[in-house]
């Protein structure tokens, strides 16, 4: 298994995902015979250093959310390892842990959700929403919780007087701030943000992104940032991993990936990023065809039916992830020999 050793230090990385897989069985009939597998996440490996932000990008349905949820163990991975450096007891593999074993670790990793409307229980007011993590993790004193909730609301830029209000009294951006406050209540070290701004207006997006950056600096957070908007990723991430149909196709630090992509899929994604300069005319690479279904992927390289550079070997052999320069991994048979362009500016 090729896996990126982005970290040259001897110390283990903060979070290391090794050949993570998540398969969903396709069953048929009354007896639920398994007739096939949907490989939602197929052999994905990456690692994050403490205090950095890893961006996970790809089209919808490529498995990036599933990957993020497996890392948090909201889903049970089919295989692979998730090595997490805990605050007190060294490195732990999260993948095989049971619900009960996970509970003490939960407070170290939290999630920010995409939908600011679905992720807050409409029956609870702000105090209950933000204070619940404290309550279930051993802070039964209401007064103490109130103080902490007020502090958290202040941290995300909401007025503590709103504590008695219900979510329906807030706008999308404000709700996302509430979600962030709830995620931060337990002082987590890893925060998985699943498209935290894609449901928001552009003007609000910037505010929330800046809030996330500010919080990272102040609290030393490590982010796993799932997104499909590359301009957002460029703004916030230190490293980027690109996924296509459940597989990792390219990973590198943000600058390298954006300015010299080595995978044709990455290049086509980058060409779709709008350039805020009317004089520049980008030669957009338009992909033909559709994203294949992970239940029935094409043979060889999953991308070859849509790839302009596909050769015979692409149709039969699945490319392995290999290192083209330090910290830059690509899974393409022709990596390095293609005239690919990153973003222009």
């Amino acid at each position, binding site marked *: 298994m090729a896996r990126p050793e982005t970290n040259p230090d001897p110390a283990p990385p903060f979070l290391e995902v090794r050949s993570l897989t998540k398969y969903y069985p396709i069953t048929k009939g009354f007896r639920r015979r398994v007739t096939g597998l949907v490989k939602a996440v197929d052999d994905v490996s990456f690692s994050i250093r403490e205090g950095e932000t890893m961006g996970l990008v790809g089209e919808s349905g490529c498995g990036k959310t599933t990957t993020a949820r497996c890392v948090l163990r909201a889903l049970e991975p089919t295989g692979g390892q998730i090595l997490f450096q805990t605050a007190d007891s060294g490195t732990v593999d999260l993948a095989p842990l049971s619900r009960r074993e996970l509970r003490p670790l939960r407070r170290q990793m939290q*999630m920010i*959700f995409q939908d600011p409307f679905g992720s807050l*229980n409409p*029956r609870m007011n702000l105090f209950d929403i933000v204070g619940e993590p404290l309550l*279930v993790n051993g802070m039964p004193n209401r007064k103490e919780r109130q103080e902490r909730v007020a502090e958290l609301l202040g941290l995300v830029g909401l007025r503590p007087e709103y504590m008695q209000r*219900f979510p*329906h*009294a807030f706008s999308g951006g404000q709700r996302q701030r509430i979600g962030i406050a709830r995620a931060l209540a337990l002082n987590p070290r890893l925060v998985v943000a699943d498209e935290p701004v894609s449901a928001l207006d552009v003007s609000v997006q910037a505010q929330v992104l800046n809030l996330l950056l500010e919080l990272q600096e102040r609290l030393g957070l490590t982010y796993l940032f799932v997104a499909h908007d590359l301009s957002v990723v460029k703004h916030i991430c230190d490293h980027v991993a690109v996924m296509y149909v459940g597989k990792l196709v390219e990973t590198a630090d943000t600058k390298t990936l954006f300015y010299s992509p080595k995978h044709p899929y990455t290049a086509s994604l980058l060409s779709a990023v709008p350039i805020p300069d009317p004089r520049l005319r980008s030669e957009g690479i338009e992909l033909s065809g559709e994203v294949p279904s992970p239940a029935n992927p094409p043979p060889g390289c999953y991308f070859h039916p849509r790839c302009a550079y596909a050769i015979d070997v692409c149709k039969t052999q699945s490319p392995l992830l290999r290192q083209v320069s330090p910290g830059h991994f690509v899974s393409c048979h022709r990596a390095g020999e293609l005239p690919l362009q990153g973003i222009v500016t």
Partner: protein
Amino acid sequence: MEESLDTAPLLKEAIPEDRVSVASNAQLVWWRFTKHKPALVAMVVLFMFFVVLLFPAFFSIQEPELTDAKLAFIPSQSLHLFDGAKLRPWVPTVVGKRNPTTLRMEWKIDASKKIAVRFLSQGYPYKIFGLIPTRLHILGAVRADEQNRIYLLGTDRLGRDQWSRLMFATQTSMTIGMVSVALSIFLGVLLGGISGYFGGFVDLVIQRLIELLQSLPTIPIWLALSAALPRDWPPTRVFFAITIILALIGWTTLAREVRGRFLSLREEDFVLSAELVGCSRMRIILRHMVPTFSSHIIATSTLAIPVMIISETSLSFLGLGLRPPAISWGVLLQEAQNIQTLALAPWLLIPGLVVVIAVLAFNIVGDGLRDAADPYGK
């Protein structure tokens, strides 16, 4: 979804913005419910039924079991509040004459002779909730004796006062309806919850069981089950048996509803979020999932009560549910089975009208609740 808050702009006119912000779900539901005027009216009607349910003896005028063959088939005497210009309630006298050819008593309303009546008068003794002895009744003749009897809804073939019997029947029938729905809710939420939360094989078994129960034609099943009840059981035991029979058949729809809610809620982000912050399973179910669909459960059960009432009434009407001396709407309607009786004493159909009113009221309130149940949706 932000526009989904269609109550908010409406509410803003009457209620200051801040009250909406801190309004809990129950308050939002209530505000929305009050916009549905027919449901409010129906709620008042239901409230009156509940008062009768609690104090049937107070609302009765005569003892419900007091028979007097000589006083059979007396028509309704209407209650008049004013005697001339004065507030002095009265009812007209009925005079009976035996028809010499048919030997049947024939009753005539004689409005010239007035029986003075009084609200909150003393009558036959009874105990409130079986505890507090009293003689207080809502209505009674000023001079209560053999001559001055009041039959607001007439009498049946045994000379029993239908008004008083109707009060007790209301208690029985409404109680059966609500207790069996309560039992159905218990069974439905429990089995539906297990089915939806755990899924897999348990789900499969429970769903097939529900399908089986729903595919059985209900009337024959009720008939079979109630025919299986020993005929020598006392009325109270029959009462409970009927309640349980109704509940055993009635839980399926509710279980399906609850299962569906659990299935959709399992996928909700806020449930996952609760899981991720370390909530226990019990807390997720009780604090996050159940409150989210509790208003739907209330609405569904309100709509289920009339079905139960109708079922009990049909069973008793067919003579397979409650039997005299128990009094229920069905038992009262049994008196109206005979076409000849009906022609002679059409007032015996009045319990049917009461059933219609109660069922309609429950349905309208249930509809209103269902529409109001999700103030965030649609």
